């Protein structure tokens, strides 16, 4: 469904992506792992067109992501941001229903609110949260609201950017389980970037390891623990010794 070929991206002299090649099949859940600063978020933003890649190609169902109608393209995506990225001037339900309150997917206000409350319920939040502001919520609740917003318009593809960062292990487990459930239930294609190995095991069908701007290892999650790749081994074990420099 999504195909990346030889994708390069530099910021000044810093070469972040140096020929990434990856593909994600429809309905598949791909998790990209890798250390901080290896270009995971940049790759994700290149797919969405938030950052323009320098060379190579990224296609969605054969169509180049940099061409065509942006609104139609983006309407197929949902995204959960690392920090939630909730709009703090809006209430929780307005955040969740944002896409349904303006633009091509616009619905009547009452209907949009109803859908928002249903999505909040789906992520385990009660309707009384709907009229609160994001600043009044805990970190875990904000992630759930972000997740509800990502799925509100029932997108074909959902991106999760470090979904468990900053959460305690129990809340991380809850969010991981929710993501897996929702992706399976919706039949959506999912791409997650994380360095949390418990997230990888809970969410992934397939795993890709990014290092130095290229994919070092790629394969089914079941093969991850037995793969001989030294980069992957070091990353999984969390060792300071190995091919990945501890100080980058």
């Amino acid at each position: 469904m999504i195909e990346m070929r030889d994708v390069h991206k530099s910021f000044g002299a810093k070469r972040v992506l140096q020929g990434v090649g990856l593909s994600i099949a429809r309905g598949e859940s791909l998790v990209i792992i890798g250390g901080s600063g290896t270009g995971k978020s940049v790759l994700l933003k290149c797919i969405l067109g938030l950052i323009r890649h320098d060379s190579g190609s990224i296609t969605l169902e054969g169509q180049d992501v940099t061409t065509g109608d942006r609104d139609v393209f983006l309407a197929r995506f949902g995204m959960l941001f690392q920090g939630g990225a909730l709009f703090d001037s809006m209430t929780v339900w307005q955040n969740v229903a944002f896409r349904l309150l303006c633009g091509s997917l616009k619905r009547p206000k009452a209907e949009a609110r109803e859908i928002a409350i249903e999505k909040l319920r789906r992520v385990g939040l009660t309707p009384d949260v709907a009229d609160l502001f994001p600043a009044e919520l805990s970190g875990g609740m904000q992630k759930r609201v972000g997740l509800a917003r990502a799925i509100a318009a029932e997108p074909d593809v959902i991106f999760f950017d470090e979904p468990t960062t900053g959460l305690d292990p129990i809340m991380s487990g809850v969010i991981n389980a929710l993501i897996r459930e929702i992706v399976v239930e919706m039949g959506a294609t999912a791409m997650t970037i994380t360095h949390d190995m418990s997230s990888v095991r809970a969410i992934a069908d397939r795993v890709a390891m990014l290092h130095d701007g290229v994919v070092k290892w790629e394969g089914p999650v079941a093969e991850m623990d037995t793969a001989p790749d030294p980069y992957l081994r070091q990353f999984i074990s969390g060792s300071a010794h190995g091919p990945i420099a501890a100080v980058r």
Partner: protein
Amino acid sequence: MTLITHPLGAIGRATLAMLALIGRIAIFVGQTCAHMVRPPFYLREFGTALIQIGWLSLPVVGLTALFTGGALALQIYAGGSRFNAEAVVPSIVAIGIVRELGPVLGGLMVAGRVSAAIAAEIGTMKVTEQIDALTTLSTDPMKYLTVPRVLAATLSLPVLVAVGDVIGIFGGFLVGTTRLGFNPVTYLENTVDFLEVWDVTSGLIKGAVFGFIVASMGCYHGMNSGKGARGVGQATTNAVVSASIMILAANYLLTGIFFTT
């Protein structure tokens, strides 16, 4: 250090950086104007911006105008008394306020209040990925954040200037009649008799231009904010400084265009 060791290179780099900045601002302003005439239009955002920029700036602009009008009356009286021209106080206060001080001081006060607030708000949104989130939700940040603020500032500044003009003249009237011994009726007659429609209109046009500058600078620096609290703080400072300088420069240009005949 570079300025001492390689002065020409440093000057060249600074010049190029300045030209690049002017180019980026020109492109930003052009894009903003292009988005103003193309749907979708976010009326709710526009209404909120009108209240934030226009309505909530009234006390600041009003107080500034009141004290400026009063101080102007005292100054003109003191200066005018050197050549027995105290009678010109009402007309000079009125002309000074509506042509120059009303729009310029109003613009500068709004630059301090609004430009900083816009840059801080949009800069924080950028740092916390809310702007990226807007894009992924099929909403153009230029249309949703910039256009409503720039339009609201462009339309509300002339109104603020008009209110400031009235309050400023009233400030001069208060000082003139209570401290300088002017007859209230004569003061008002002198004010109205010497004031022309173009004096007022030119001030209102200046207000609209300054409003456009204030909001554009706030949005530009917010959208291009650096990372973290330091980046947002720097964006806020840059917005106020650049808006203020541009207001003063634009004021000189507009005064030249309007009154050099």
